């Protein structure tokens, strides 16, 4: 620096440094050791909502975000209280969590494991989030769940349907409210057998990654148990945008049912292609050709438009459910946002309440206390009917919906109609089921970090 002239700025800087020097003994303190990661100390507690905001699942992430914001409002005693009025546990008073006002931070998972972990880390390290909620892919869910386990905070997965999330990759700090591929298979198979007969021949198109495989495995197992035959299982690359070359051989294969183990954009395109090839107008083996999409979501239904008419699938939740919790939630969500909630929105909403309730009942934000409060917790009034958070694998057990694309929808939101509510007993499996990592799969130890 050749500039020696005294400026106002320079003087201020010097003054600030001198001031800091004088004050050093009182303010120069390392942070006090807290009992667990991100223990909330002030009057607020921060939740992290990690959802896809860019990329193909951005709209779904946005829906999850809306639901989570609604949940925070209800926790803080704003709005109409939503499911707080119908929830069987009455620990929540609408005064935040343990008297602390609930705030939240949001992040973008981009539906990529790396980006999702980066976003979750910034919530944990920078914003002091005490739990992470949301997401729309199993890969992301497993990756972020692992991170939260290491960091010592609670993770609640959003839309994740692969068996592995609460199967071989289950974690003590991680919870899943959403249903899984096994449950889809178990719920769908009897309906399929009833509607299509027990001697069908199925052709599977499967997205070539982990979720696709677990779903294919589950559906194949449960349909074969009912007498179906599997003609072929074909893996399609994730990056595919056009499925014509996979659909074209189906009619000649001797199959009479096409099962699309696809999600999101893949499913929209493969179903559109299948309809283009006129599969549903054909007769094979003397029977009407049918298409099944085991995992449905409202956004996929919207994207697929008319093509879903009559196509069967399963869902975790649908806003047309008539129980008290569902009605309260749909009313609250609908009045605020002008549309009914999607099933991933409901999962994210329910989980925020479940977490808050567990903290209230445990009387502490300590993740291990929360885990204890959630394990084996039975509740009702959040929209799905009677639900159990199983202690052995942190999977929720509740009724599963079998739905069908409506023939004559009256508006943009009732494109799916509920065919059957499969009772929870039919979709329950032992925690050491081979599709879920077998006997070796363990939750491990609870981690409270710090």
């Amino acid at each position, binding site marked *: 620096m050749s500039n020696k002239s005294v400026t106002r700025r320079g003087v201020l800087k010097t003054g600030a440094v001198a001031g800091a020097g004088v004050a050093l003994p009182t303010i120069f303190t390392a942070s006090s050791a807290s009992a667990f990661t991100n223990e909330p100390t002030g009057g607020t507690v921060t939740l992290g909502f990690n959802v896809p905001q860019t990329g193909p699942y951005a709209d779904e992430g946005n829906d999850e975000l809306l639901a989570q914001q609604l949940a925070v409002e209800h926790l803080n005693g704003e709005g109409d209280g939503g499911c707080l009025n119908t929830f069987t546990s009455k620990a929540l008073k609408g005064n935040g969590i343990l008297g602390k006002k609930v705030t939240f931070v949001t992040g973008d998972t981009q539906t990529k494991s790396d980006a999702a972990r980066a976003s979750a880390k910034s919530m944990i390290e920078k914003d002091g989030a005490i739990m992470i909620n949301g997401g729309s892919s199993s890969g992301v869910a497993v990756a972020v769940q692992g991170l939260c386990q290491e960091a010592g905070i609670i993770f609640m997965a959003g839309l994740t349907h692969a068996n592995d999330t609460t199967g071989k990759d289950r974690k003590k700090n991680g919870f899943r409210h959403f249903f899984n591929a096994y449950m889809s298979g178990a719920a769908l198979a009897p309906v399929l057998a009833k509607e299509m007969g027990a001697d069908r021949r199925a052709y599977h198109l499967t997205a070539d990654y982990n979720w696709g495989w677990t779903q294919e495995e589950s559906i194949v197992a449960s349909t074969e148990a009912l007498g179906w035959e599997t003609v072929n299982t074909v893996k399609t690359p994730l990056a595919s945008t056009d499925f014509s070359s996979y659909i074209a*051989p189906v009619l000649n294969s001797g199959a009479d049912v096409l099962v699309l183990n696809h999600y999101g954009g893949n499913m929209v395109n493969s179903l559109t292609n299948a309809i283009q*090839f006129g599969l549903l107008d054909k007769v094979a083996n003397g029977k009407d050709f049918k298409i099944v999409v085991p995992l449905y979501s409202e956004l996929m239904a919207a994207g*697929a*438009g008319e093509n879903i008419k009559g196509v069967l699938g399963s869902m975790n939740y649908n806003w047309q459910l008539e129980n008290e919790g569902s009605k309260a939630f749909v009313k609250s969500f*609908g009045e605020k946002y002008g549309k009914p909630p999607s099933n991933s929105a409901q999962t994210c909403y329910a989980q925020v309440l479940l977490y808050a309730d567990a903290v209230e009942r445990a009387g502490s934000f300590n993740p291990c206390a929360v885990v204890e409060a959630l394990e084996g917790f039975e509740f009702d009034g959040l929209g799905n009917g009677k639900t159990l958070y199983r202690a052995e694998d942190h999977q929720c057990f509740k009724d599963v919906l079998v739905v069908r694309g409506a023939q004559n929808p009256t508006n943009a939101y009732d494109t799916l109609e509920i065919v059957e509510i499969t009772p929870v007993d039919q979709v329950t499996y032992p925690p050491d089921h081979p599709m879920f990592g077998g006997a070796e799969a363990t939750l491990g130890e609870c981690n409270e970090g710090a």
Partner: protein
Amino acid sequence: MDAILLQILNGLDKGSAYALIALGLTLIFGTLGVVNFAHGALFMIGAFCAVTLQRILNLSFESVDESQTDFLGNPLKVKTPYVEAWFGPEAGAVIIDWSVPLAVLFAIPIMLFVGYAMERGLIKFFYKRPHADQILVTFGLAIVLQEVIKYFFGANPIQTPPPEALRGSLDLGVMVGFDPNAIIYPIWRLVYFVFATVIIGGVFAFLQFTTFGMVVRAGMADRETVGLLGINIDRRFTIMFGIAAAVAGLAGVMYGPLNPPNYHMGMDFLVLSFVVVVVGGMGSLPGAVLAGFLLGILESFASTTWATTTIPGINQIIIYLVAIIILLTRPRGLMGRKGVMED
């Protein structure tokens, strides 16, 4: 045999989209020497022209129907499109039904204008800049364009169905003597193939048989000399940019009924179309078309069960594998010219 024919059809169909996009990309590159990373975005904008027209045709006024209720239990608002009110319900319904073919007419002026504006407003300042800068600026533009579309239309795919008459499929096998159901093919895919052939033929005819096209070709071969002859080659190249944009846009409009458009469909095609252009040979229009169809057919064959059981995962990598083999055996792609983009 029927399976092979079916996959050839599929390949031609996939190849049509690749060839159309690659053709436009090569036109831009060959005339202006610009690497246009926003070309996929032009394809996407084309598809959204169809979505927009569909939305416009479906613009409706609301009337309350007391007999029905919406999801919150309030009286249902019934919508009637203006088109149906003006032209009568039947004619209106037909117009709405034919919105995709109509969108072709709607998209041509829009795409020409988009292309023209892009060239005059942005690309023109980048002729003298390194290719890397061109890539960065067009990539930035592509992101901006797709984010704008996402802002207005959301991230979810939007159906743009073909007209009722062109839905469903034809049993081509029966026509040439195979068993029924052996070769079933969707009508719209055949329409797309024919459409692509017409457009490609049109572009070639335009370059081959018009004076304008002749000058452009001369300019592609030797820009300086043509300039010295007193011809305003820049203006013609600008128009070519508009035409290239229109080709990409029309490819997008007609693609909508095959797979519903979403805001990132351009990016899905971007890398692939560059591979196609390079495999065809930089700056060669026939090369781009040939490579488009070739890769389309190979991709289709690689996705048959026979291929994937012989070599697992071949369907995932076939395009790239073929690109590597071709570039290693033919240094400038299938029909590339010497000295283009090699420095």
